[in-house]
């Protein structure tokens, strides 16, 4: 035997119960057996050949174990589908789903009204509602009243600007494609709705860092109703703010909102944003 393995004498002594071995030899051989496959094989050969008592004990244990070892746990049905579903909350909480559904429904309703061409004449409803739609979803994503797990989220290390942005991105990821289809169907220029839409989202987050995202969303929706929807409805034509000459202003607002969010990024890890 090479010096790296236990001698035949020690292996046989160990197989017979270790009574003929010194205590330090037993410890050494046990430690060695744990790490050495060759010596384990030799031990089992010795046991099978010369120690019937141990061999029968091992067989009993094995016959008890084997049926349990051969059964592999069956893969739960739908486990794979749930694997990616379980990653979804990293982007959007279940509390946001009904609000996103509502935003999509309002968009589609506006599209239908535009295509039918009722009521407001030359005003595009899609254009009129586009900026406030993502704000609805963003509001729901950080609401104390709507998100049951908000308290846990608020105390988690990941709470902060990057989680806010993740959820905002998921809202935009749902709302913008729908608006894109609606804008294409009604012939409204992309920049004409996309800029106000993004500017409002950025403003919600910027204001949300101070008073809480939900409050900010409500306040901005009211401002929108007063400044844009009411004059449009009264005059029966698209308000100045939504015409193409208003675009630089929206771009400026977007840049301003983004700047404020970046400057105040530390504020999003405290509870205020969750109110």
């Amino acid at each position, binding site marked *: 035997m090479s010096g790296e393995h236990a001698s035949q004498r020690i292996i046989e002594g160990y197989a017979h119960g270790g009574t003929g071995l010194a205590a330090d030899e037993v410890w050494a051989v046990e430690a060695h057996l744990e790490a050495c496959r060759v010596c*384990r094989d030799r031990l089992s050969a010795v046991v099978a050949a010369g120690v019937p008592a141990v061999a029968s004990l*091992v067989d009993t244990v094995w016959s008890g174990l084997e049926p349990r070892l051969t059964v592999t746990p069956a893969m739960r049905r739908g486990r794979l589908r749930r694997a990616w579903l379980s990653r979804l909350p990293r982007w959007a909480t279940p509390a946001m789903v009904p609000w996103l559904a509502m935003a999509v429904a309002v968009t589609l309703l506006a599209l239908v009204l535009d295509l039918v061409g009722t009521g407001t004449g030359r005003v595009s409803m899609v254009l009129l509602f586009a900026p406030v739609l993502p704000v609805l979803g963003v509001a729901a994503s950080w609401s104390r009243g709507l998100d049951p797990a908000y308290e*846990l989220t608020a105390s988690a*290390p*990941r709470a902060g600007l990057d989680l806010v942005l993740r959820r905002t991105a998921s809202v935009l990821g749902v709302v913008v494609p729908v608006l894109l289809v609606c804008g294409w169907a009604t012939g409204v220029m992309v920049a004409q709705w996309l800029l106000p839409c993004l500017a409002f989202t950025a403003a919600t987050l910027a204001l949300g860092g101070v008073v809480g995202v939900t409050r900010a969303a409500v306040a901005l929706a009211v401002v929108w109703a007063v400044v844009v929807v009411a004059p449009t409805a009264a005059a029966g034509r698209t308000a100045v703010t939504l015409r193409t000459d208003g675009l630089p202003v929206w771009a400026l607002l977007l840049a301003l909102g983004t700047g404020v969010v970046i400057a105040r990024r530390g504020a999003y890890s405290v509870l205020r944003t969750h109110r």
Partner: protein
Amino acid sequence: MTTGREHHMTSAVTAADLAPTAYAWEIEATGLKVRVGRKRMAVDGLDLRLGTGVHGLLGPNGAGKTTLIRTLATVLRPTGGTLEMLGEPVGGPGEHRALRRRIGYLPQEFGYYKRFTVREFVEYMAWLKEVPKADVPAAVQRAVERVGLADRADERMKALSGGMVRRVGIAQALVNDPAVLLLDEPTVGLDPAQRLRFRELLQELGTDTCVLVSTHLVEDVAAACTDVVLFAEGRLVFQGTPDELAAAGGPEHVGDSPLERGYSALLQNPDRERGSW
């Protein structure tokens, strides 16, 4: 019999485990004040030092227990005084990211997503708590096993009883192996057998963790806590062992057990008298 895989002994102790702690107390508050709403000081000048062990936070309703725990969970910010947790000052600017990773928190109103399974929810919480990705499955399984829900781990939360939901709440608090564990009314909704099991778990955790348990059940404190913190109207009334609390009460005080008598004796201060409750 042989297994196909060879075992190689590696050290299970990392440098981080061996590093000496740089703080004397896990939680150290000096003159801590926390305002709730516009005017009310729910915690008003609290001096408190808590180390490793299970600390029972007792006090009447409205004493400010929940506000204190939410402040320690870094959900609320202190209005005044200083608060240091694990050697890091709390309340200044900054995100407390590193500190939050080492805190476990069960809120009084434990909100969850009904359609999630137990495992999915605890996994999601592990992600929120920035548990390293490779450790998540094992950490989730360990946490779920510790609260005895391993057999229900793949069931949806809406199918669970109130006591089980509470245990999921405890599991999510444990999933990041916190150094400070804050449990707000964890025994609500647990049946007597579960409560006994929970006390055992508390004692086990208290050997190497600073556990703060808020409760209004005096018997919970007697059974599981090494230390009692009695809190009323935003101030510390008493801090000591359960035996010291029991010694404060005499036969003339209201209560069915020595601890309850001690509790009512300490709260019976004349200027605290208000209402019939």
